[in-house]
C-alpha cells in the first residue's frame, strides 16, 4: 500500500517535470504548425509509457541503488577503512585511496550502461548510420570514458589539484583528436559528453565527490565536491573518438591485407600467363 502511494507521488513529480515540454510541443503544434499530430494515439501512449517507465525507474533507484551506493561511497571514504590499523594520520598519500579509484571507475562504467538517455541516443545513432555504428559498442565506449573520467576526478580531489588544468588538457586532446578521426563520428562524440550524466550517474557520483571531499583533511566539500560531473562529461568525447579511430585503423588494416591477397592473385595470374606464353613459344619452336 505504501509502495503504491510512493509510486503515485513519483509519477506526479515526473508528470510535473514533463509538463513544460508537453505544453511547448502542443502549443507549437496547434498554434504554429496547425496540423493534427500524426499517429496521435500511438504518440500519446508512447508518452504515457515514458512517464510510467521513468517514474518506476526513479522509484526503483531511490529504493534500491541510491541508498546502497551512497552508503558505500561514505564507507569507502571513511578514514577507518582507508587507514585501518594506523592511528595517527600524518599525511595522506594518493595510493591509500586505491579502492576509491576502482569503485569510482566501476560505478561510473556500470551506471552509464544503464543511463536511459544514452540508450536513446545510441538507438538513434545506430538507426541513422544504418548499422555502421553499433549501439552497444557506442555505449561501452562512453562508459569506459566515464569510468576513466570519474576515477581521474577522484584522484584530483585526493591530491587537490585545481580542476581547470585537467579540463583544459582534456579540451586540447579533444581538439587534436577531432582533426584525425572520421568526420562522421565527431558530432555524435560531442553529444555523448552531455548525455552521460543524468538520472543514474549524477546522484551517485555527487555522493562520492562529497564523501571524498569531506573526509580528506584539507579539502572543502563545498569547493572540491563539485567537478566530478565535468570529468564525466569530458572523457566520453575522447573515448568515442578513440573508438572510431580504432575501428578505422582496423578497417584500413583489413583492407591492406585484402589488397595484398589480391595482388598475390594477380601475380599468380601473370605468372600463369607467362608460363602459357612460354609453352606456346616452345611449341612453335618445336
Amino acid at each position, binding site marked *: 500500500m505504501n*509502495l503504491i502511494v510512493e509510486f503515485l507521488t513519483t509519477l506526479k513529480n515526473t508528470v510535473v*517535470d*514533463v509538463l*513544460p*515540454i508537453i505544453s*511547448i*510541443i502542443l502549443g507549437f*503544434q496547434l498554434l*504554429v*504548425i496547425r496540423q493534427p499530430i500524426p*499517429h496521435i494515439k*500511438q*504518440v500519446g*501512449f*508512447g*508518452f*504515457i509509457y*515514458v512517464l*510510467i*517507465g*521513468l517514474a518506476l*525507474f*526513479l*522509484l*526503483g*533507484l531511490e*529504493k*534500491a*541503488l541510491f541508498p546502497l551506493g551512497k552508503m558505500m561511497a561514505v564507507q*569507502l571514504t571513511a578514514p577507518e577503512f582507508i587507514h585501518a590499523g594506523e592511528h595517527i594520520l600524518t599525511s595522506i598519500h594518493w595510493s591509500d585511496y586505491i579502492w576509491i579509484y576502482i*569503485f569510482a571507475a*566501476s560505478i561510473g*562504467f*556500470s*551506471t552509464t550502461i*544503464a543511463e*536511459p*538517455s544514452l*540508450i*536513446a*541516443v545510441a538507438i*538513434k545513432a545506430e538507426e*541513422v548510420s544504418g548499422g555502421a555504428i553499433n549501439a552497444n559498442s557506442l555505449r561501452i565506449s562512453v562508459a569506459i570514458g566515464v569510468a576513466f573520467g570519474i576515477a581521474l576526478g577522484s584522484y584530483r580531489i585526493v591530491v587537490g589539484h585545481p*580542476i*581547470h588544468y585537467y579540463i583544459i588538457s582534456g579540451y586540447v586532446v*579533444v581538439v587534436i583528436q577531432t582533426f584525425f578521426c572520421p568526420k562522421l563520428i*565527431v*558530432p*555524435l562524440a*560531442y*553529444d555523448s559528453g*552531455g548525455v*552521460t*550524466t*543524468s*538520472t543514474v550517474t549524477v546522484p551517485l557520483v555527487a555522493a562520492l565527490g562529497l564523501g571524498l571531499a569531506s573526509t580528506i583533511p584539507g579539502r572543502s566539500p*563545498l569547493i572540491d565536491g*563539485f567537478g566530478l*560531473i565535468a570529468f564525466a*562529461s569530458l572523457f566520453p568525447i575522447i573515448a568515442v573518438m578513440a573508438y572510431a579511430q580504432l575501428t578505422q585503423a582496423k578497417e584500413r588494416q583489413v583492407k591492406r591485407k585484402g589488397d595484398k591477397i589480391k595482388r598475390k592473385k594477380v601475380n599468380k595470374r601473370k605468372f600463369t600467363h607467362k608460363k602459357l606464353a612460354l609453352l606456346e613459344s616452345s611449341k612453335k619452336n618445336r
Partner: protein
Amino acid sequence: MNQQFFVFLRALLGSCKDLLPIILVIAFFQFAVLQQPMPNFGDILVGLAFVVFGLTFFIYGLEMGLFPIGESMAQAFAKKGSISWLLTFAFCLGFGTTVAEPSLIAVAKEAANVAASGGIISDTLESQLSYANGLRFTVAFAVGLAIVIGVLRIIRGWPIQYIILGGYILVVLMTMIAPSWIIGIAYDSGGVTTSTITVPLVTALGVGLASAIKGRNPMIDGFGLIAFASLTPIIFVMIYGMVLS
C-alpha cells in the same frame, strides 16, 4: 498479441542485461571489499524489479512517442519554411525543459550555499534564493540559446568542430578571468542540464531536421545539439559569476 508479448519480454531481458553491471559492482564492493551483509535485502530486490520494468517501459515509449513526435515536428517546420518560428520553438524547448529540471534546481541550491559560506552573497535565505534563481535562469537561457545555435547550424550546414572549438577557447579564456569560486559550479552545470526526456526529443529534432533539409547528412548534421547545450551553460555561468563579483 502473443508476438507483442514476446517483444516486451525481449525488451525486459535487455533491461536486465543493462542493469547487471551495477548489481555486480555493488555486490562485489559490499561483500568482497567492505565485507558487510546486504541491508534490507527484500527492499532492494523490489527496487531492482522496479528499475528493470521502468527502463523497459521507457525505451518502449521512446520509440512509440518521443522519437516520432520530435521527427514529425522537425519535418513540419521544414515544410513550413519559417526559420523564425523554428528558432523560437528551439529556444522554448531548451529554456522550458531546463528551467524546471530537478537536478539543476538541486545544484543551484547547493551553489547558493557555497556562495553564502564563501561570503560572496549575504547569508540570508532571501539572497540565497535570488542567487539560486539567477543561476537557474542563466543556465536555462544558455541552453535555449544553445539549441538555437545548433538548429541554425543544421540549417546552414556549418561544420560543428569550429563552433565547439571556439566555445572551448572562450571557456579557457573565461576561466582565467572568472572568480575561482564559480569555476567548479560552471563546469558542472554543463553536465546536469540535459534531462532524460529532453535528450531523446532534441536528438530526434536534430536528426529529423537534417533529414528534411536537402543536402544535409543526418549523421553529420543531425547530432550535436546536446553538445552545444552542455557547452554554453559553462560560459554563461562564468559570466554570471563575473557580473556578481
